């Protein structure tokens, strides 16, 4: 009886990818589901700012990323749950990961969590979702060169953590 409105159709089309992106950014499944949900609500409320004819996926991924950054900031203001700042430096020294060829989601999420935020989002957008460098630069509002160099560092760190050495 209720026909879907454009927002709902747009959201439905991108929802599985949005969830996957949330899982790539967030620490655990509960965080990821919250993130996807909050993103959908924010996007709905600001749907009038979406320009028809532009990419809805880029638009909502950008919102998702902003929501996530806000979440992290408010957590670190509260002093809870913050990632240890030395995480980036300790990459590549996990003795358990380098030997196993197969990885599961938990391990992949843990590895992603050890990346600095700005590398993780680039890896999530390009390597996991398959956005191009240019779209990624637009979503993140960063120069393409910045995206490219963050991607290099992020994927090298992942290889060190998850690769066969």
């Amino acid at each position: 009886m209720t026909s879907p409105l454009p927002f709902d159709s747009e959201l439905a089309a991108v929802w599985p990818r949005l969830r996957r992106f949330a899982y790539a950014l967030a620490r655990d499944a509960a965080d990821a589901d919250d993130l996807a949900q909050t993103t959908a609500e924010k996007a709905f409320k600001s749907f009038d700012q979406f320009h028809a004819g532009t990419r809805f996926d880029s638009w909502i991924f950008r919102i998702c990323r902003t929501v996530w950054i806000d979440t992290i900031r408010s957590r670190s203001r509260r002093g809870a749950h913050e990632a240890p700042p030395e995480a980036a430096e300790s990459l590549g020294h996990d003795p358990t990961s380098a030997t196993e060829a197969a990885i599961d989601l938990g391990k992949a999420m843990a590895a992603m969590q050890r990346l600095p935020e700005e590398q993780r989002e680039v890896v999530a957008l390009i390597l996991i979702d398959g956005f191009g460098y240019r779209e990624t630069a637009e979503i993140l509002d960063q120069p393409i060169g910045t995206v490219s160099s963050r991607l290099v560092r992020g994927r090298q760190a992942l290889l060190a953590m998850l690769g066969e050495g």
Partner: protein
Amino acid sequence: MNEEELFYAWLDGELEGKEAEQVAARVAADPALQAKSEQHRRVEAQIRGTFDPILQEPAPPPQFSSVNVLDFQAKRSEREARRASFGLPQWAAMAATLAIGIVAGQFVGNRSGAPIESRDGRLVAAASLDRALDAQLASAEGNGRVRVGLTFRDRNGGICRSFTDDGMSGLACREGQDWRVEGLFAAPLGQQGDYRMAAGEDPRLAALVDERISGEPFDAAAEQAARDADWR
């Protein structure tokens, strides 16, 4: 991009033409680079492979069209209703006006002929109001008491129409085959006998239209086209 970045950009298929050829030649001539590209491809495919099953999970997206649209709007009204504590349902609070008690009684009901019905917890146009919203153009002189004012698309892309009907003015938006009443305002006391105010003139209705409208109201041609398309 430096040489390393070029290598990875090539790996991701981001390079074209001459640049791509140069990196490909460099990799072809260098076994270490070949190994490196293999390794990255393998590990990155593995990472994708661990995240991809999320795409198949039965986790339906949240829906906003059917419930939340009015819920956002109703929040304020709910607060007002609680403050007033008349024990009236939400829709009555939406038409926050002194006259509502009197007017709503004759307007909203499930008796036959009532222009607004409560159905599944929603207020929808019924009887003469439903017929007018379905069929009547703003330009129609008509003999009926319903006048249709503005027709427009709201920010979700649905079609809404403002109306006046015997002492009330309001806004209804298309939802499936129904016109869901999104706002209902009684005319000021003393003006109800001959309420011929153009829809949109009531400042509360104008504010509601302002809040909902995306772009400009339909002109006569767009309105007619929308009717021909069953208000989709």
